[in-house]
């Protein structure tokens, strides 16, 4: 049922569109830079809890803005065309893959900017970078599926936030708890929590594959 080359073709299509119409990519980039710069002007050298909270909230909003367009950019006619040439499972997996890569890139950028502008209170650098990437990936998966729902409802990004915030609270709380451990030398990062996060990501992926075919047909 799963055909890797078809998923890859759809994925390449998304990358190609992004490379040709760079306004959205640079738009998100500017969004990150502007937000972090405003933060830099507003507060200097925040406490580590504040740093942690701000980092994840900004990640959340960057993710909503970056992922929102992924289904809305496809016009109705183009969706009909995809409907004839591909299967919904391939389509949604390609979108999940593309958005994951986009958010991983954005997370890396905002990490660098946070370290540059707002200071670096992190004690365990490598585990925190890993956590930030894992967290970005989790956010991107949940919001990709919600973007599909919002696009079908012909709504803007605001409804994505309304639908997504209650669902993302547990993952954000787990991430903040784990990254608090990365901020102090005495606490340890619990592997069970990391495995729990990965398991949640797999659950979201599975649900997307099961439920997207219902959204796809009109």
């Amino acid at each position, binding site marked *: 049922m799963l055909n890797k080359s078809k998923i890859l073709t759809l994925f390449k299509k998304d990358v190609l569109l992004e490379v040709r119409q760079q306004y959205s990519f640079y738009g998100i980039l500017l969004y990150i830079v502007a937000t972090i710069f405003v933060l830099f002007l507003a507060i200097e050298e925040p406490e580590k809890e504040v740093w942690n909270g701000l980092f994840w909230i900004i990640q959340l909003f960057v993710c909503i803005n970056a992922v929102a367009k992924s289904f809305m950019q496809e016009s109705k006619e183009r969706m009909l065309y995809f409907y004839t040439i591909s299967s919904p499972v391939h389509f949604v997996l390609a979108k999940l893959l593309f958005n994951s890569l986009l958010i991983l890139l954005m997370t890396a950028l905002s990490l660098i900017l946070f370290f540059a502008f707002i200071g670096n209170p992190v004690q365990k650098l490598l585990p925190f970078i890993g956590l930030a990437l894992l967290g970005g990936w989790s956010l991107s998966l*949940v919001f990709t*599926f919600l973007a599909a*729902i919002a696009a*079908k*409802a*012909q*709504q803007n990004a605001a*409804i994505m936030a*309304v*639908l997504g*915030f*209650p*669902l993302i*609270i*547990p993952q954000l*709380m*787990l991430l903040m*708890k784990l990254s608090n451990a990365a901020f102090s030398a005495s606490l340890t990062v619990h592997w069970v*929590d990391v495995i*729990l996060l990965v*398991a*949640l990501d797999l*659950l*979201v992926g599975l*649900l997307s594959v099961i*439920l997207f075919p*219902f*959204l796809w047909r*009109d």
Partner: protein
Amino acid sequence: MKKIWWKILCVVLLFYTIIGGLLVKIPNLPVLGETIRNLFFHVGMWAVMMTLFTCSVVQSIRYLSKMNIRYDIYAHNYASTGILFGLIGYATGALWMNYTWADPNAPSYSFSTVARDPKLIGTAIALLIYFAYFILRQSIPDIDKRAKISAVYNIFAFAMLFPTIMIIPRILPSLHPGQEGNPALNFKDVDSTMRLIEYPAFVGWTLLGVWIATLKIRINLIKEKHFIK
């Protein structure tokens, strides 16, 4: 008027709950005291809320497999009745908490610590999910599309809710009894005479919730009868 027996059972059980719940001899525990009688009312509300939300998801799954608008009416009426019972559960919990947890000398400070309780956050997430479900429904004018998209969201959100209820107690400390699972359901928590009231109370409240939901469903089925196959 067929299948009336469960409605009679519901009324009988609720009379038994209210009369028995106020008269039964309770173990007079420190801090809790007489407020322990709230157990028959407060915990019952959560049982009803989760039952109704589960019914709502089952109807959403049935909608996606049969594509009959009737199941969508079932699903959203179960969900709205579930929200009602969730809010009543909050109200009874707030009253109870006022006598047991809150520090009378610093009410605002103690509120912020109490509101971080995992059970409260879990329920807040459940209620937010179903409020979002209704906002999503309002935003789609087309009936079939609304039914399909909201069914998909209902299933997705419900499947994410269960890990949530498991995860959050791992993160936060709690004052709420029953840290390791469902409070008041295991045999160690509740005195044996109280259990004689507790379980009939759960059944009675759940039947009441389903009764209210079925009445709402019947009204909506009549309102929408031109659309139903």
